[in-house]
Every structure is written in structure tokens, then in C-alpha cells.
């Protein structure tokens, strides 16, 4: 019994960090915007980490899942808003739709890409976000390149006041919940057979196969999980905070880049890495934007290179080494 509880100790520093963020955001005026942004980055990073961190494969088209999730919520709101009395149920349907669509897209991409090894996988995924965007624009589905605007429908469903508080506060809380859920699932995977299989295939895919591990199956599990959380983040952070969706915006490779920075900086494959990475990146970007706007990628691109060459384990990875054998080791993974 004791064993079971100690398994979840690493969540404590995670929850503590988020609690601190919440307190700062609510009590210091003007900080909520920054806190909301940090929560977004942590959530995006946590979801991305489930795949990149645990399998060692880079999905360059990652943002596609966030975009698809955004569309899921947007479509639910746009098409169901006229049904009276559904109210908040529509938002729930929106989440469900986001999960379904992310799952479908990840299964479709995964069916091709996950059979491929490292470099070929990267090639296969690099066009996914663009490809999907051009499908929407090219075939003019879901209103094509004009996108969807649903501020009015959102007001209609929830009433102006609720809608407003959703957009400025409650959506961020939901993103926070998603981040915590993603962390929970990450930890669960890590401690279960799935985690062991993923570690094995990340280290040495061929040896893993000989050990009896069906690597494709586990890659798919990680891939779909990561995609679903990405979809939920998109549905909330994008659709619910800013009630419109334009294809070029929600399929921009920029977000994938940021996710990569966050996960690598914090420590790929660690539980706390995305939080640390999200905080460092988010805070840097926020303050850089004040003094040198538009510069953050110029600074972080060489940072990634330096991390890859000199500190591939990231911040949390290095911390893990330091605390090895001590009492803290149970909390930092």
C-alpha cells in the first residue's frame, strides 16, 4: 500500500508549482495574463512530452492536433448553438469532439508514420500541419480559409457574462486541469508496463523488439495520448479564449517549435520537465517581448542547439542526477 502512494509523490512538486502560479495570478494584479500564458506553455509541453519525451521521436507536425482540437470545439459551438437549453453541454460536446478528431487524425497519421523509423518519421510528420491546413483551405471544408468566428454563438450559449468570465479566467483554469491530467497520465505510463516498453524502445528499438516488445503498439499509445491532450489544449486555449479559428493560425509550425524548446529545456522524458521548461520559456518570452519583441526565437534557437550538444537531459534531467540517492529523488522524476 505504501508503495502505491509513494509512486505519486512526484506530483507534489508539480501541484505545488501550479498552486503557486495560481496564487500569484489571483493575488497580484496584472499577473493573470502572464500566468495564463505560462499555464498554456506547461500544458502544451506536458502533452508534447508524452510522445517526444517517452519515445524519442519528434513529431514535427504536432500543432496539427492542437488545431484539430480547436476546430472540434469551434464546430460544436457553431453548429449546436441554436439548440436551446443545451448550454454548457455544448462545451462538453466540444471537448469530446476535440478528443475524437485528434484521435482520428493521430490514427491516420500514425498508421503511416509510426511504421517508420526516426528520420523517416520526422519527414512524414513535417507536413502534417501544413497538409491538414491546405486540406481545409483547398477543399473549403469548415468554411475553408475564412475560418470560423463564433463569439456570438458562445454568448448565446452561455450568456454574455459567463462567456466573458470563461474567456478571461475559467478557460485558463481548464487548461491548468488539462496540464495536471496530462502529468498524471504521464506518471501513470512511466510507472506501468507502458513506460518500461517506451524506455526500451527509446533506447534501443531493435533490442526492445527482441525482448518481446511490440514497439509499434506502444508508439501508437503514446502518439494518440499526446495528440488527445494537444487537442484538448487547442480546444480550450484557442477556441474558448478567443472564439474564432483561422487555418493559418492554428496550424502554424511556430507552436511546435515552442513545444520542442519547452520539452528539451525542461528535460525530455521527465515528469517535471515540461513545467520547468514552460515556466522558463514563458517567462523569458514575456519579458523579452517587453524589451526586444520578436527576438525570442533568435535567442532560443541557438539555446536548443546548445542543449542538444551540451545538456541533452535538460534542467530536470540534470537535477535528477544531483538528487540521486537522496530523499528528494522520490519527488523529482
Amino acid at each position, binding site marked *: 500500500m505504501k508503495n502505491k502512494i509513494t509512486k505519486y509523490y512526484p506530483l507534489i512538486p508539480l501541484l505545488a508549482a501550479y498552486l503557486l502560479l495560481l496564487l500569484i495570478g489571483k493575488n497580484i494584479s496584472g499577473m493573470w495574463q502572464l500566468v495564463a500564458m505560462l499555464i498554456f506553455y506547461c500544458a502544451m509541453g506536458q502533452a508534447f512530452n508524452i510522445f517526444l519525451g517517452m519515445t524519442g521521436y*519528434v513529431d514535427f507536425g504536432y500543432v496539427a492536433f492542437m488545431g484539430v482540437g480547436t476546430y472540434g470545439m469551434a464546430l460544436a459551438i457553431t453548429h449546436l448553438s441554436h439548440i436551446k437549453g443545451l448550454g454548457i453541454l455544448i462545451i462538453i460536446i466540444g471537448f469530446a469532439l476535440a478528443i475524437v478528431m485528434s484521435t482520428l487524425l493521430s490514427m491516420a497519421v500514425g498508421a503511416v508514420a509510426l511504421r517508420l523509423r526516426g528520420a523517416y518519421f520526422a519527414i512524414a510528420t513535417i*507536413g502534417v500541419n501544413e*497538409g491538414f491546413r491546405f*486540406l481545409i483551405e*483547398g477543399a473549403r471544408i469548415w468554411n475553408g480559409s475564412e475560418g470560423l468566428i463564433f463569439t456570438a454563438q458562445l454568448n448565446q450559449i452561455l450568456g454574455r457574462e459567463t462567456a466573458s468570465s470563461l474567456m478571461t479566467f475559467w478557460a485558463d483554469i481548464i487548461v491548468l486541469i488539462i496540464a495536471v491530467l496530462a502529468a498524471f497520465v504521464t506518471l501513470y505510463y512511466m510507472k506501468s508496463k507502458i513506460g518500461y516498453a517506451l524506455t526500451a524502445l527509446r533506447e534501443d528499438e531493435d533490442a526492445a523488439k527482441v525482448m518481446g516488445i511490440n514497439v509499434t503498439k506502444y508508439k501508437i499509445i503514446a502518439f494518440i495520448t499526446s495528440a488527445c491532450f494537444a487537442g484538448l489544449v487547442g480546444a480550450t486555449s484557442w477556441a474558448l479564449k478567443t472564439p474564432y479559428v483561422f487555418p493559418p493560425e492554428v496550424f502554424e509550425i511556430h507552436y511546435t517549435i515552442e513545444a520542442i524548446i519547452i520539452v528539451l529545456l525542461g528535460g525530455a522524458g521527465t515528469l517535471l520537465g515540461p513545467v520547468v521548461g514552460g515556466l522558463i520559456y514563458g517567462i523569458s518570452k514575456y519579458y523579452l517581448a517587453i524589451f526586444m519583441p520578436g527576438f525570442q526565437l533568435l535567442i532560443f534557437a541557438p539555446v536548443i542547439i546548445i542543449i542538444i550538444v551540451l545538456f541533452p537531459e535538460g534542467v530536470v534531467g540534470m537535477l535528477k542526477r544531483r538528487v540521486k540517492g537522496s530523499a528528494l529523488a522520490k519527488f523529482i522524476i
Partner: protein
Amino acid sequence: MILEQLAGNLIQGLVLGAVYGMATMGLSLIFGVLKVVNVGHGAFIMVGAFVTLWLFNTLGINPILAVPVAFAIGMGLGFIFYYTTMQRLIKAPELATLLATFSLGILLEELIKLIFGSEFRGYNWVVGKINIGVTVFPMAKLYACIGSALIAVLLYLWFNKTRAGSAVRSVVEDSEGARVCGINVGGAYALSFSLGIGLTVASGVLLTMFIPVGINPYMGGGYTLKAFVIAVLGGLSSPYGAFFGGLVFGLIENGSYTIFALLPGVEPFALTRFLSFVILLAILLIKPTGILSRK
């Protein structure tokens, strides 16, 4: 009349394809020798475009002369990046080189944005048109096509007739064996990487001869995907395969655009780009080593 149009279309596709193909040769070379996928490929093409832009608009140097300059710059960049970063990542997992080249691409985009700004630029190189019977061609495009074919031939000669080229070929076959024969494998890697980057930057010049507008720091992204489709078509490791893959791709792209433009209710440009992505997935599904390769 229709036949003429079709023929004209075909030639357009081939000419563009030659340039696309040449633009992909560097990618295939780097993968073939170092087994590294240069995910930042498009950014280097963009650098070539800006070199052309700057040389033309600021110094009045015509694009044809910009090609060797761009090539030299590319080789320089390649050497620097190889010796500072890539060399240390030989033993690292694949993930590392993918992310390193990706980040390099981003760095280049941001640097160019810093220096030149993010507006769309272009240049105006007036060299007239030529009538080749079925269609009228801007001379610039023809130069670009000829230039591409020329470079492909030069590469072939280099690989097969020079000592350095043969050394690289033997490294590809068997790096341990080459090492034992006294070949400087690390040097071969550095040379191949730099050559690949040089080719890519030079191709940026040729591409602007084809499309001298819309030059901006983020123009590379679209070309990266196209390059991957072409590279995979031609067999990821073979620069010549890439060239022919480019021809095929040029035909497909042109042809599909024409067809899509005839369909109601669709956006032909966007749909064509979606199609190239589908082709990529299809090839990876059926024959990842490339439809045109012999493996």
C-alpha cells in the same frame, strides 16, 4: 489547341521540376552520406534567395553570378555548422541531429529577419522571353533550368572523376573500410555536409530566377516539404534520384494545379499543396526507399 496547351504545361512542369530537383540534391547528399535529415532545408534555400536579392538590388550583380557566391556562402555555413555542432552529434540519437538542423533553420530565419526585415521582397531582372513554339518562356526561367541541369552534371562529374568524390562514395559504401584505407572519414563527412548546404543555398538563387517575388525570411517552410516529397520520390540517399524526382514532381504539381483549377468549389493552390503531402505519405507507405531508386 488543347494539345499545345498540354505540351506547354508539360514543359513548364519539367522546367520548374529541374529547379526543384536541383534544390533537393543537397538534402539527398547529406542524408546519403551522413544519414542526417536536414530538417532546416528550406531555410538554406531562403538564404540563397536573399543573397541573390542583396547582390542584385544593392550591387547590381545579376543572378547568374550570384550562384557561385551563394554556393561559397553555403559551403562556409556548412563547414561552420559541421565543425561546431554536427560533428559532436555523430554518436547521439537521431533525435539530436533532427532537432539541431531544425534549430539551425530557425536561427537562420530569425537572423535574416533581423537583418532584412520580414516584408515580402523581390527583384526585377529583365532578360526577355523566348518563344519555343508551344509556349512563351521568360528567359530567366530557362536560365534557371539550364543552371540546374548543369549543376547536376557537375556534381556527377565530381563524384565520379575526382579523388574527393570517390573518397566520399567509398565512405557511403563502407565507412569503416574507408577509414582503414586511410580515407579521412570525418573530413569526408564535413565536405559532404558543406557541399550539400552549398548546393541548397545555390538552388535558392535559381529558384528566385523562377519566382523573383515573395522573398521573405519564412519562405523556406513550403520548400522543405516539397523537397522531402521529391527526395523520397527519388530515393532519399541519391542526389541524382532527387533531380529526377524533381522533374516528376514538377510535372505532378503543374498538372494537378491545372486540373484543380478546372474544378468548382476548391482552391487549386491549397489543394495542390495538400496533394504533395498525400504523395509523400503514399510513397512512405509503399516504398520508403524511393520509387525511383533501385533498392
